[in-house]
C-alpha cells in the first residue's frame, strides 16, 4: 500500500485497517477455550455443586473449581485502599473470592471455569452443572439492605454496612448552618451504570513449564497495576508474568485490576499445560465487569443574607455492591469528599458517607469515579439554593468563586487546588451560549408547545496524583536514529503514542515518525503509575519531557565532538545542532546513526522522570435543551463546553476526550441505568434493555479551551480524560430542571427518560 496521506494519530493506521491487536485477537496452537459457570441467584448458600455431567460432556478437559483455587493458594481479589475515619475506625472489608466457596452474593458471581477444546463445547457443558443452592432473600438497594431485619451478606458487616465514613469539620459546619440566613438542601442520585467499553473483556494465557513463566494477554490500564493484582491474588511473582497487551478497546476505569477470569486462565494454563482463551459475552460482561456510580448525594448549603456560602455538607450513601473490590470504597468516601466545595470558597465543609453492601455486582471506578457525581450534586444544590432564595444562579456562583489570588487553595478537606480562572471561563461560556437572551428563546419555544431550559454548571475535579512516587520513561535510540520510549502506562484510546511523540517533537525536533512510544513491555519495567484519574499525559508526559531535556543535554556533548567545535559555537534548533562558524549541521537522528555501536546502549539513552502532583481541571459547560411535553423527549439544542485543561499538548485529542466524556454524561443523564429487581436479577442485562447513546445524540456542540497552566508538573497540563463527565452531568440536569421548573418541578433524578419526564409533568 502506498504511504498514507497525513493521518492524525500514530495509532490510527493499524486501527483503521483492521490490524489492531485486541486480546481476543490472540491465538495459540493447541489453545483451549474457557466458559464461566456463574451464580444464577443473588444470594444463596452453596450446599453442593456437582460437576459430573459437565466433565462427561463432549470436549471437556477440566473444570477449575474453588478447590483448585484453594490448592493453588490464591487470595481474594484486592479490596483497594481501606477507608478510615478520623477516630481510627477502619471500614469492614469483604474481599471477593476468585471463585465462590460457601456463598454467592450476586447474580453472575464466578463459581467455576469449564475448559474444553472449543468454546461451544465449554459453554454447552457448563449448562449441565448441577447446583444445590439454598436461596436467601436478596437486598438490592439502601432501604432493603439497611432495614433492621435485612438479610446480612457478610458475617463481619453488621447491617450490611462497611463504614459510616466522616470527614471534614463537623463542628464548624454546624456552626455555619446555625448562623446562616438561608439554608437549602438537594438530594441527587447518581444511578448505577454499566460502563460497557466496546471491547469484550477477555484473557488469553499461556504457561511455559520450563521457564515457569506465564504469558498473559488481557485489557488493562497499565502493566504494573495489573501485574500487582495478579501477583497479589496468585502469589506468583510479577517477574514470572509477561503481560502482553497491544490494543485495549476502552477501559474507563474498569480494567485497572485483575478479575477472577484473569487468574483462572493462568491457573488453567498451568494445570492443563495448554494455552487458554476466555472471552466474555456482552451479557456476561454486564454481570461481571465492575459496575459504576451507585451514589446518593444529599447536599446542604448555608448562605448569609448576601448569598455568600458559609458552609456546605453532604450526607451520602455509596452502594459497594456485594464485595469491597478495588475502587468502590475510595470513590464513595474519598473521591466524593476531596472536591466537595467545587469551585467555591467555603470556610466550613463536612461530609458523611455510608458505604453499604447489596447483592449486586461490585462497584468500582467508571469515568470520573465519584467526581462527576459530586460535581452534579454541588451544582444542582447551587441552582436550587439560587431558586429557593431568589438569587441569580450565575451571580451566586460568581460571588463565591475562589479568586485567582487565593491559589494554591487548600480546601481543608483533602485538596490543594493548583490554579484557575473561574470567572474568565464562566464569562466565555455565557458568551458562547448567548445565555443572556435565553428567556426569549424559552418564550418562543413555549409558543410551539415546547419547554426550553438552559443549564449551566461549573465543575472542578481532582486529577490523580498517581499511585507511584514518580513517573519514569526509558528512552532508547535505535541505529536508524529512531527513539523508542518505554513506559508503564496503559492507553485505551487516548492516543498516548501520538501525544508523547508530540512532546518529543516540540522539545527536541525529532520527526514524529522517528519516535515510537511503547507501553507495557515486561522487560522494560520502571517506576510509574498506570493510566487512571486522567493523569497519564502530565504524569508520564512530564517524564517524557524530562527525558528530552536529558537527551538534549547529552547531545550537546556529542555535537561538540561530531561538529568539532566548542560549546559556545553551537546552536540547537528544529532538531539539529549547527556549528555556527562553519554552518555544518547534524540532526539528532544523524548523530545517532554516526555513533551507534551494535549491541551497546547509545550515549543519548536516558531515563526521564518526573514527580507530578494532582491537578484540578475545571470548566464551565452550558446546555440548552428542549422538552416536548407530549412525549417527554428531550432534545439537546446546543452544548457549550469551555474547559481549562492547562496546557493542551494535542488539542484534537483533548477535544476528543471532552466529546467522549460529555456523551457518556448524556448516557447517564438520558439513557442508562442498571436496574435490579427485588430478587437481585439484573433486568437491564443486555443492550436490548440498557440504552446506550447513539450517533446523533449530540449534534450541536462547541468546545473551547482556556489554558491556565499548572505548576504541579513540568508541562503545565491538567488532566482531561474525565472532565467531560464531570461537566455534563450537572449541566444537563440543571438544563432539564430549568426547563421543568416553570411547571413546578424542582427535583428529578437521572436518567431523564421520556417516560420519567412525562410522568413528572403529569403530576404537576
Amino acid at each position, binding site marked *: 500500500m502506498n504511504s498514507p496521506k*497525513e493521518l492524525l494519530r500514530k495509532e490510527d493506521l493499524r486501527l483503521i485497517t*483492521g490490524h489492531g491487536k485486541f486480546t481476543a485477537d490472540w491465538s495459540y496452537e493447541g489453545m483451549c477455550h474457557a466458559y464461566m459457570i456463574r451464580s444464577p441467584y443473588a444470594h444463596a448458600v452453596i450446599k453442593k455443586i456437582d460437576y459430573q455431567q459437565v466433565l462427561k460432556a463432549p470436549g471437556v478437559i477440566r473444570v477449575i473449581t474453588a478447590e483448585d483455587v484453594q490448592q493453588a493458594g490464591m487470595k481474594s481479589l484486592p479490596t483497594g485502599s481501606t477507608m478510615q475515619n478520623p477516630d481510627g475506625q477502619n471500614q469492614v472489608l469483604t474481599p471477593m473470592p476468585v471463585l465462590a466457596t460457601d456463598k454467592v452474593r450476586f447474580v453472575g458471581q464466578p463459581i467455576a471455569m469449564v475448559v474444553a477444546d472449543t468454546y461451544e463445547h465449554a459453554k454447552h457443558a457448563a449448562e449441565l452443572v448441577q447446583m444445590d443452592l439454598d436461596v436467601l432473600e436478596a437486598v438490592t438497594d439502601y432501604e432493603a439492605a439497611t432495614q433492621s431485619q435485612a438479610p446480612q451478606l457478610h458475617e463481619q458487616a453488621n447491617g450490611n454496612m462497611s463504614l459510616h465514613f466522616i470527614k471534614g469539620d463537623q463542628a464548624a459546619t454546624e456552626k455555619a448552618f446555625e448562623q446562616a440566613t438561608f439554608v437549602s438542601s438537594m438530594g441527587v442520585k447518581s444511578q448505577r451504570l454499566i460502563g460497557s467499553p466496546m471491547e469484550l473483556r477477555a484473557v488469553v494465557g499461556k504457561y511455559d513449564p520450563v521457564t515457569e513463566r506465564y504469558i498473559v494477554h488481557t485489557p488493562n490500564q497499565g502493566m504494573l497495576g495489573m501485574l500487582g493484582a495478579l501477583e497479589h491474588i496468585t502469589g506468583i511473582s510479577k517477574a514470572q508474568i509477561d503481560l502482553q497487551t497491544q490494543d*485495549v478497546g476502552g477501559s474507563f476505569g474498569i480494567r485497572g485490576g485483575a478479575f477472577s477470569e484473569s487468574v483462572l486462565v493462568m491457573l488453567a494454563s498451568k494445570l492443563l499445560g495448554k494455552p487458554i482463551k476466555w472471552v466474555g459475552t456482552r451479557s456476561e460482561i454486564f454481570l461481571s465487569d465492575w459496575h459504576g456510580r451507585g451514589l446518593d448525594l444529599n447536599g446542604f448549603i448555608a448562605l448569609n443574607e448576601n448569598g455568600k456560602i458559609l458552609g456546605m455538607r453532604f450526607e451520602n450513601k455509596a452502594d459497594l455492591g456485594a464485595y469491597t473490590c478495588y475502587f468502590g470504597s475510595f470513590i464513595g468516601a474519598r473521591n466524593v469528599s476531596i472536591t466537595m466545595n467545587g469551585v467555591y470558597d467555603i470556610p466550613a465543609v463536612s461530609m458523611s458517607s455510608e458505604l453499604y453492601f447489596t447483592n449486586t455486582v461490585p462497584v468500582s471506578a467508571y469515568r470520573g469515579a465519584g467526581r462527576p457525581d459530586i460535581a452534579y450534586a454541588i451544582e444542582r444544590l447551587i441552582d436550587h439554593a439560587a431558586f429557593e432564595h431568589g438569587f441569580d444562579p450565575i451571580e451566586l456562583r460568581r460571588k463565591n468563586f475562589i479568586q485567582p489570588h487565593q491559589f494554591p487553595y487548600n480546601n481543608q478537606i483533602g485538596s490543594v487546588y493548583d490554579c484557575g480562572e473561574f470567572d474568565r471561563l464562566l464569562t466565555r461560556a455565557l458568551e458562547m451560549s448567548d445565555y443572556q437572551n435565553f428567556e426569549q428563546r424559552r418564550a418562543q419555544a413555549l409558543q410551539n408547545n415546547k419547554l426550553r431550559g438552559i443549564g449551566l454548571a461549573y465543575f472542578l475535579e481532582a486529577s490523580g496524583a498517581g499511585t507511584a512516587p514518580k513517573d519514569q520513561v526509558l528512552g532508547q535510540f535505535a541505529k536508524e536514529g529512531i527513539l523508542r520510549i518505554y513506559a508503564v502506562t496503559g492507553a485505551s484510546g487516548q492516543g498516548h503514542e501520538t501525544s508523547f511523540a508530540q512532546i518529543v517533537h516540540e522539545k527536541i525536533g525529532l520527526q514524529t515518525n522517528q519516535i515510537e512510544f511503547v507501553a507495557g513491555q515486561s522487560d522494560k519495567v520502571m517506576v510509574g503509575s498506570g493510566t487512571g484519574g486522567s493523569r497519564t499525559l502530565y504524569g508520564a508526559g512530564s517524564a517524557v519531557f524530562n527525558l528530552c531535556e536529558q537527551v538534549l543535554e547529552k547531545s550537546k556533548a556529542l555535537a561538540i565532538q561530531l561538529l568539532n567545535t566548542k560549546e559556545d559555537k553551537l546552536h540547537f534548533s528544529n532538531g539539529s545542532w549547527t556549528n555556527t562558524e562553519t554552518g555544518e549541521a547534524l540532526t539528532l537522528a544523524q548523530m545517532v546513526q554516526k555513533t551507534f555501536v551494535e549491541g551497546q546502549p547509545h550515549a543519548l539513552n536516558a531515563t526521564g522522570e518526573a514527580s507530578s502532583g494532582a491537578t484540578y481541571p475545571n470548566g464551565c459547560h452550558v446546555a440548552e435543551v428542549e422538552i416536548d411535553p407530549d412525549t417527554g423527549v428531550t432534545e439537546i439544542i446546543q452544548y457549550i463546553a469551555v474547559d481549562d485543561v492547562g496546557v493542551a499538548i494535542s488539542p484534537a485529542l483533548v477535544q476528543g476526550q471532552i466529546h467522549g466524556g460529555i456523551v457518556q454524561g448524556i448516557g447517564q443523564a438520558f439513557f442508562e441505568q442498571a436496574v435490579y429487581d427485588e430478587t437481585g436479577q439484573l433486568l437491564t442485562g443486555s*443492550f436490548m434493555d440498557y440504552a446506550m447513546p447513539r450517533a446523533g445524540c449530540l449534534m450541536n456542540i462547541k468546545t473551547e479551551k482556556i489554558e491556565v497552566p499548572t505548576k504541579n508538573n513540568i508541562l503545565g497540563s491538567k488532566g482531561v480524560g474525565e472532565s467531560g463527565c464531570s461537566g455534563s452531568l450537572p449541566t444537563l440536569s440543571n438544563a432539564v430542571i430549568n426547563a421543568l421548573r416553570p411547571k413546578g418541578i424542582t427535583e428529578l433524578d437521572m436518567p431523564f427518560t421520556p417516560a420519567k419526564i412525562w410522568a413528572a409533568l403529569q403530576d404537576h
Partner: protein
Amino acid sequence: MQITVNGQTQELTVQDNTLLIDLIRDQLHLTGTHSGCDTTQCGCCTVLMDQVAVKSCTILARQAEGASIQTIEGLALQDLHPVQEAFSQEHGLQCGYCTPGMIMSTVYLLQRYPNPSDEQIKEGLAGNICRCTGYVNIIKAVKSAAKKMQETKA
C-alpha cells in the same frame, strides 16, 4: 462451501453452526472484524456482503455461501479508502474497537447517499455503537469522506 472474501474466492469447510464472524476471524484469521455484543446491536462485526452492510455475528457462514464479503482488511487497495482517511483525520476513532464496523457501515451509507444529510447519517450509523468518541467526530468523518469521494468522482 465457496465464498469470496476480500476478492479472493476460496473453498472452505465450515460447521453448519459456524457464524460468518467466526469464519472471518477464526478460519481466515482476519481479526479486524470484532464481536462487541450478543444481541445484534453494537455493529462492531459489520462487514459488506455483496456490497451491503450486514452484521456478521448474526449470519451463518452457510447463508453466505457464494457471496462476496468485504472486511475492513480488504477496504484499502493501493491507498487507504477515503473513509479510512477521513476517520483518522477527523479523529473519529479513539480505542479503535468499533472502528472497523463503523467504517464499513459508513462505506455502505455513502454508497446509498453520496451527500448525506444529518438525518441520513444518524440513520446510517444507528446500528453501530461507540463508547469513546461521542460520535461527534465520527459524523464529521462521514461528511469529510463524502466530500473526498465526490471530489474524486468530479
